[in-house]
Structures are given as C-alpha cells and as structure tokens.
C-alpha cells in the first residue's frame, strides 16, 4: 500500500516536472521509478535487462542492453525524494553490449527538498559499435536544499557512441558536484554536456574529463552555466589526446548575471601523441551586449531579453 502511494506521488511529481506520464504507463516502454532507496516500479522491454537490489542505504542497479538490441522507445528512469529530508544513493552499473542502441531519459525530482542528498555512482561500459544516449534532467524546489553528487566512469568501445546531457535549470541547484570521466577507444565518439542555472546561494562544481585513448577517437566536453545572485561555479573540462588522430574539444561558457556571483573555469588540454589535436574555448562574462541590444531593438524589455538569451544558452 505504501509503495502504491509512493508510486502515485512520484508519478504526480514526475508529471508536474514535465515528465512523460504516458511513457511510464506504456508497457512497450522500459522504465524504472525509484523513490528514496525503494523501487516503486520497473518495466523491462525486449533487449533491456534491469536488475535491482535494494540496500538499506541505497539501490544497486544493473542496466543491461543486450547485444545488437535496438531499443525503439527511450527508456525512462525516474529518481526522486519527495519528503523534505532524505538520502538517495544509486549505484549504477550500465552495460551496453556490442551493436546495441538505446536512449535513456532520466528525471530526478526533489521538489520539497530542505536537506536531501542524491548520489549516483555509475560504472558504464559501452560496447563496440554501440550507441548510448543519456539525458538527465533535474527538477528541484526553490529552497536549494539538495546536494546532487553524480559520478560516472564511462568506457566507450571501438566505434561506440556516448552522448550525455545533464540539465539542472528548474528550481535551485543547491549543491552540485558533477564528475564524469570518459575513456574513448578507437573511432569512438563521445560528448559530455552539462547545463545548469545557478541562483541564490547555489554551488556548482563540474568536472568533465575525456581520455581519447584509441586511434581517431573524438570527444567533446561542453558546459553551459548561467549564474544569478550569489551563485558560485567551478568548471574543469579536461581532454587528453593519447592516440594518433584523436580530436577533442573543451567548450565552456559561463554567464555571470548577479552581483555576488563567482565563476571559474579551468580547461585542460593534454596531448601525448604528435598526431593528436585537442582544443578548448572557455568564456566567462556577462550577458552579451550585442544580443541584448538586438532583442531590445525588437521591443523586448531588458529583463525579457536576458530571459530569452539565458533560455537559449541552457536549452
């Protein structure tokens, strides 16, 4: 009975947060809903195996995409803590076997958080010629009482593709400590993207590391942050060209839009092969004046123009 109530409450919050409720109710769509450290629903589809082990302090998940499986619909994950306080610790092991293809859409919901910790420790292996797209979107309340600590180690096999996008723009971030490290094998293509909107007293720490270990591996570590009020952010984007003809890029943009904001960026590009090439661009600054004037010349107020620019950057 408790599980049913939690399920309903999670679905309600998920729907309010913009999640696709129909997808969660559709038996053809793989899904997994976890409230706190309890699994409230799970649905496997052909080609996907989800093993779950509830622990006192967290949930272990083994997510397997079988060899050659092309998953038709995105798999929906929903993690959340609805009470004001709580700890959610997800130990995630992902295995996308060779030649598989899947898109995973995760919603993380903490609408009432005053003192909530959400930790994810992921070990992800993408097989040869497999493609894995992972989109994680957070919905937080306005109190800023969440600590989000996602850590991932990702290995991408030969000709494998990894694309991840982490978005935290609804509500207050609270504290974000994001740390993704990726190792790309021969001809792999990898992209790490983080988008965050810091407000009030939010603290954001982003580490994106890409090791291009195989010949002709490509990687992009991209981040887009907008900081208001007294928000503070540090972004470290690192790309290592360790093999011939690897191509990597670090692209960081932080928009400073508050009196007490502190924004820092440390890009690191490292090459130890003479045929490798990695580049970086990092820009920190206020809203672009030219963009602002252009929109104001179309009749938008300054506030509305800033809103349009910020939404575009964080989209």
């Amino acid at each position: 009975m408790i599980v049913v109530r939690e399920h309903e409450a999670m679905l309600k919050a998920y729907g309010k947060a913009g999640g696709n409720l129909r997808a969660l109710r559709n038996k053809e769509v793989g899904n997994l809903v976890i409230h706190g450290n309890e699994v409230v629903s799970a649905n496997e589809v052909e080609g996907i195996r989800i093993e779950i082990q509830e622990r006192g302090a967290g949930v272990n998940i083994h997510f397997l995409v079988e060899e050659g499986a092309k998953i038709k619909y995105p798999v929906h994950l929903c993690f959340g803590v609805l009470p004001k306080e709580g700890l959610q610790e997800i130990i995630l092991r992902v295995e996308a076997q060779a030649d598989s293809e899947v898109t995973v859409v995760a919603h993380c919901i903490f609408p009432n958080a005053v003192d909530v910790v959400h930790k994810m420790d992921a070990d992800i292996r993408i097989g040869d010629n497999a493609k894995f797209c992972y989109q994680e979107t957070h919905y937080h309340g306005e109190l800023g009482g969440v600590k989000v600590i996602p850590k991932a180690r990702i290995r991408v096999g030969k000709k494998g593709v990894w694309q991840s996008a982490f978005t935290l723009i609804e509500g207050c971030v609270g504290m974000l400590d994001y740390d993704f490290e990726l190792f790309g094998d021969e001809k792999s293509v990898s992209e790490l993207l983080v988008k965050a909107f810091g407000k009030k007293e939010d603290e954001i720490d982003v580490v994106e590391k890409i090791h291009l270990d195989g010949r002709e591996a490509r990687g992009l570590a991209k981040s887009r942050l907008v900081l208001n009020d007294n928000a503070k952010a540090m972004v470290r984007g690192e790309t290592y060209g360790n093999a011939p003809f690897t191509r990597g890029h670090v692209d960081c943009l932080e928009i400073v839009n508050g009196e007490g904001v502190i924004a820092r960026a440390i890009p690191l590009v490292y090459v130890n092969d003479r045929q490798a090439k990695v580049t970086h661009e990092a820009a920190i600054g206020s809203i672009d004046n030219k963009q602002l004037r252009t929109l104001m010349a179309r009749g938008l107020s300054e506030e509305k123009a800033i809103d349009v620019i910020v939404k575009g950057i964080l989209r």
Partner: protein
Amino acid sequence: MLEIRSLKLTLNGKPVIDGLDFKVKEGKIHGLLGVNGTGKSTLANLIMGISYPDEGSIVFEGQDITRYAITERARMGITLAWQEPARFEGLSVGEYLSVSRDLDSTEIDNYLWVVGLPPAEYLNRAVDASLSGGERKRVELASVMAMKPKVAILDEPDSGIDVISLPHIMNGITEMSKQGSAVLLITHSQEAVTVAGELSIMCAGRVINSGPPREMCQWFKNNCSACNHIGEPSYQGA
C-alpha cells in the same frame, strides 16, 4: 516621419556626428551613402537609442525621442539591423522571428521565403555560428520584417555577403517598403541604393547632399570616390 535635427556627437574630442539633418518619409526607402568612417553606423546607433547625442534632436511622428531608451523606441516602431548581427545559441530561426510579436507558422514561412530561405530547411536551425554570414543577414532581415516596424534602419545589409544572398536581401528591402515600413538603408555600395527613392550622401558626420539616387550616385562618384572629406568644415568647394 523620422526627422534628425542638428545632431552632434563628439567622441574623444573628435566630432563624429557634426550637425546632421535629414528626414525619412513614411513607407519610403531612404538611402544613406558614404565611405567607411563617415559616422553612418554611429548615426544608426543614435537613432536606435544605443547612445545619445551631445546636441540636436531625433523626432519620430512629431515626438522628440532623443532621450528615449532602446525598448521604448522599438515599441514605437523603430528597429535596427546591425551590420554584424548577433548570434544566439539555442534560439531557432522560427523563434527568433517571433520575438517581437506572436506569428503563426504561415507568416514565419512567408518572411523566410521573401529572403530566399526555404522554411523546411531553416525554421529549426539555430541562429548561431552554424549560419553563414549571408544566411544570418537574411534571417536578420526576415526578423525585422516580422516586426512590421514603422522605420527599419538597415546598417549595411549588403556588406560582406555572397552573390547568392544579395538579390534576396534587396528583395527583402523592397518587400519591407511594400508592407508599409520606411527603410533607412545605410550602405557604402552604390549598387545597393538603387532600390531607394531618395539618397543622402554622408561625409565626416554630416549629410552633404540629398536627391534622387541616380543623380546622387553620379555626384558621389565625382566628389567622393577619392574621398577628400568634403563634409569637413574646412571644405569650401561643394
């Protein structure tokens, strides 16, 4: 409709706009021709309210708007397309065209067709660095048209673009005039001003001559091709 009266602006001790007068009539294309550095873009910024003059006034529909802010002027019906349009990450062409007012999809499509951009190909493209210079200028012109302004200031819409884009830009300017907007077409190209009904020649921060485009182009050729800054106060021979 738009009247510039004895406008003056000095920057770093140098007069950039030096007692400039001229008028833009309702629904007409008014060309403003001058070599680089004569103050054309500065004038555009003054009319839009990006900066303010030291002396003189800008009158729009009988109202002195010299000290009005950018947004106020825009809401009265004045807009500006800059020489180097801004790029917007994450904003699609369709959204960009709709920032000034709500448009239905047919209207958006029509504006894109006017500047030769097939909607199916461009509607969802981002207004960012992925667009070429010519494409970006055509999108800018479409967005100005979409606003249906009373006066559109176009700062060198023809500069730095490819040969394919140019006729579409010129078509857009003509269409804008047909839809009832007055256009202040700022350029240093004599070819571009052929669409204008009237042409003013600008030199050293002043309008030094105005009249029919063909006549003015000839005058420009004779007097300004090897620029001797005839607009400067010391010049006596015009």
